[in-house]
C-alpha cells in the first residue's frame, strides 16, 4: 500500500482537512449573520475521506459529487473565497452565484458537477470515465456519493456499465449512516459492498475517520484504476457529525479548538464522544504521538488556514449580488 511517509505530505493532508473544516465554519458564521439562506449539508466529520481523495487526484482527473460538496471543492483546490461567494449567491462566486451550495463547479480544477439529485453524480461520473478512456490521456473520473445513492436504480446500472466496459472510475461512497439512528440507505443486501461486488467491481472498505488509512486505500485504488482501466468501489465508514440534520447550520459541536487534541480535558458536553474521535483531532493526535509535528506546528498550520479563510470571507462578503436581469441569460451555450 502506498503510505504517506514524508512529514510535508502529512502536514499538507492535515492542512487540507483544516481548510475543509474552517470553510464550513465560515459557512455557519455566514448563515448566523444572515449572509445567506442557510442549508444543512455541511462536510464536517467527512474531512478524512475528502482530503485523502482530493490530495491524490491529478490535473485532468474529473470529479462529480453530491449536495454535501463544500469540502470536496475546496479540497480539490478551488478558491475558497469564490466557493464561499458562490454559496452566498454572489457575483464573484465560482458560478457567478447561479449554482449555490448545491451546484458548484470549477472547470479550472476539473470539478465537473455537484448534484442535488440523489444519484446524480454517479451517472455523470460514469460518463467522465467513459470520456477519460476514449480520450486516452490517462485520466480517471471520481464519483463521490453517500450511502443513500445505493437505493437509486441508477447506481446499479452505472456499476454494471462501468464494469462491463472497464471504465477508469473511483466510486467513493461516504457512508455516514449511524447505527441506532434510521439508516439512510435501506438495502436488503447485508453490506453496501455486496452490490458492486456482485457486478465484479473490486471493492474496499476503510475507516473514514483515519485519513491515512483512507489515503492508502485511495492510493491503491487509483493505481489500480490507472493501470488496469477498471472501476473500484471504496466504502468509507464515517461517524456522522451530530449537526448534519439541522435545518440551518449551527455549531452543534462548537467551533473546532485544535488544542483539544492534546488538552482532552476541554472535551465536554453531549457530543464529547463524537469530538474525541473526529478525524481532524484524531490525526493531530497521531502526528503528535509519532513526533511528525509539535503542538506549535499544528497551531501555526491552523492559524495559516484561518488567515486564508479570513481573506476568503472578506472576498465573499464584499462581492455583490448578481444583477437580477442576468437570471434570464445562459440557458443555452
Amino acid at each position, binding site marked *: 500500500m502506498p503510505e504517506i511517509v514524508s512529514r510535508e505530505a502529512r502536514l499538507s493532508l492535515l492542512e487540507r482537512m483544516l481548510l475543509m473544516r474552517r470553510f464550513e465554519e465560515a459557512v455557519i458564521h455566514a448563515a448566523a449573520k444572515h449572509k445567506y439562506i442557510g442549508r444543512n449539508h455541511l462536510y464536517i466529520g467527512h474531512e478524512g475521506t475528502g482530503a485523502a481523495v482530493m490530495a491524490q487526484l491529478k490535473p485532468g482527473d474529473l470529479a462529480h459529487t453530491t449536495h454535501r460538496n463544500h469540502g470536496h471543492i475546496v479540497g480539490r483546490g478551488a478558491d475558497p473565497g469564490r466557493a464561499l461567494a458562490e454559496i452566498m449567491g454572489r457575483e464573484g462566486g*465560482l458560478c457567478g452565484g447561479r449554482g449555490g451550495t448545491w451546484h458548484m463547479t470549477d472547470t479550472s480544477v476539473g470539478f465537473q458537477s455537484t448534484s442535488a*439529485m440523489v444519484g446524480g453524480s454517479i*451517472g455523470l461520473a460514469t460518463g467522465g470515465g467513459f470520456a477519460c478512456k476514449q480520450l486516452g490521456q490517462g485520466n480517471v473520473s471520481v464519483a463521490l456519493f453517500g450511502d443513500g445513492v445505493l437505493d437509486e436504480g*441508477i447506481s446499479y*446500472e452505472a456499476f*454494471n456499465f462501468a464494469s462491463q466496459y472497464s471504465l477508469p472510475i473511483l466510486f467513493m461512497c461516504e457512508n455516514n449512516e449511524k447505527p441506532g439512528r434510521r439508516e439512510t440507505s435501506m438495502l436488503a443486501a447485508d453490506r453496501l459492498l455486496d452490490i458492486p461486488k456482485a457486478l465484479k467491481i473490486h471493492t474496499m472498505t476503510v475507516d473514514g475517520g483515519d485519513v491515512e488509512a483512507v489515503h492508502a486505500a485511495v492510493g491503491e485504488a487509483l493505481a489500480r484504476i490507472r493501470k488496469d482501466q477498471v472501476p473500484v468501489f471504496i466504502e468509507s465508514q464515517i461517524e456522522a457529525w451530530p449537526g448534519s440534520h439541522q435545518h440551518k447550520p449551527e455549531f452543534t459541536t462548537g467551533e473546532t479548538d485544535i488544542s483539544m487534541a492534546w488538552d482532552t480535558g476541554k472535551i465536554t458536553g453531549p457530543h464529547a464522544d463524537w469530538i474525541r474521535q473526529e478525524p481532524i483531532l484524531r490525526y493531530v493526535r497521531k502526528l503528535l504521538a509519532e513526533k511528525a509535528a509539535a503542538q506549535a506546528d499544528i497551531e501555526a498550520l491552523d492559524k495559516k488556514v484561518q488567515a486564508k479563510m479570513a481573506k476568503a470571507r472578506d472576498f465573499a462578503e464584499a462581492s455583490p449580488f448578481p444583477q437580477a436581469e442576468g437570471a434570464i441569460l445562459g440557458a443555452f451555450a
Partner: protein
Amino acid sequence: MPSEKMLTVKDAILEALFEEMARDDRVCIIGEDVGVAGGVFGQTKGLFEKFGEARVVDTPISEPAIFGMTVGAAMAGLRPVVEVMFGDFITLVMDQLVNQAAKIHYMSAGGYTVPLVLRTAVGVGGNLGPQHSQSFHAWVAHVPGLKVVMPQSPADAKGLMKAAIRDNNPVVFIEDRTTYNVKGPIPDGDVIVPLGKANVVREGRDVTIVAVSRMVQIATKAADILAGEGIAVEIVDPRCIVPLDRETILASVRKTSRALVLDAGHLDYGITGEIAAIISEQAFDYLDAPVARLAAPNVLIPCNTALEPLIVPNEQQIAQKIREMLNA
C-alpha cells in the same frame, strides 16, 4: 441538371452520422442495439463495422445510467449521439435530461457545456400501441436548456443532424418512424441546416399551415386537394420547435391572414397551443379568422391499426378545416 442523390429519411440521418463520425473523433454513438445489430430499424447500420466498438457502443437496457453517462461524457469533451429506442422511453431518462443535461450550462455559468444529441423515434402507426407510439416533444420543449428538432424531409434530416451534432447544447432529435422510408433528394457536400430556421415548404396566398415532422407531409396532401378547388395553401415547417423561428411563421400569417397549426402529438397543452398563442399575440391585427388547430385527441393510442387512424389528423380533416376557415 446534375443528378442529385435520392435517400430515405432514415438513410439520410445515417449518412449524417457516417460523415460526422469521420470528421470528428469525439463523435460517438451510444444506445441499445446500435452497434452489432445496426439499430432496430437499421438506423445505425454499418457504423459499428466502420468505427468500431469504442465509438459505437451497445449498452445494457439501463436508460437512466446510460443517458447520465452520456451527459458526463459530453461535459468531459466527447460529442455523443445517444439513442433512446422509442420516444416513449424518454420517460426513463427524464431526470438526467431535465435535471442534469438541461441545467449544466446555466448552473456552471457557462463553465461547462453538454454537446450531445438524444435521438429517438416516435410515431403513430404499425400497431405499436400506447407505450410505443407517443411523442413527448411538447414535454421536452417545455424545459429551458433543451433544443428540440423534428425533421420531415431527407435533406432536412441530414442537415439538421449534422447541425445538432455540432451544437454545444443538448439537442433532442425526434424522428417520426412513418417518415423513415420517405425518399427525397440530398444535396452534395457538407450541407448544414441551421437549428431554429423554418422552411417555407410550399407557398400560397390563402392560408398558412404550421406543421413539423410527419404533419408536413400530410399537410402537403391536403394542400394538393385544396389546390384543385382554387385554394392556395402555404406550409411553414419550423423544423425545430426549440428554438422556434417565430419570424418566418409570423411573416407567413401576415401574408395569408389565416393560420392552421397541426401536430401529431396531443392537442391539450401541446405545441399547437403555443404556436397559436404566438400568432394571436403577435399577428392579431392581420388575422381574418381565429387561429385553428388540429392535433391528436387526448386519448391513448390504441394497439390496433383499425383504430390508429382516429389519432393523427388526416388530409381530409385538414382540407375540411381550411374550407371552414375560408367560409367563416
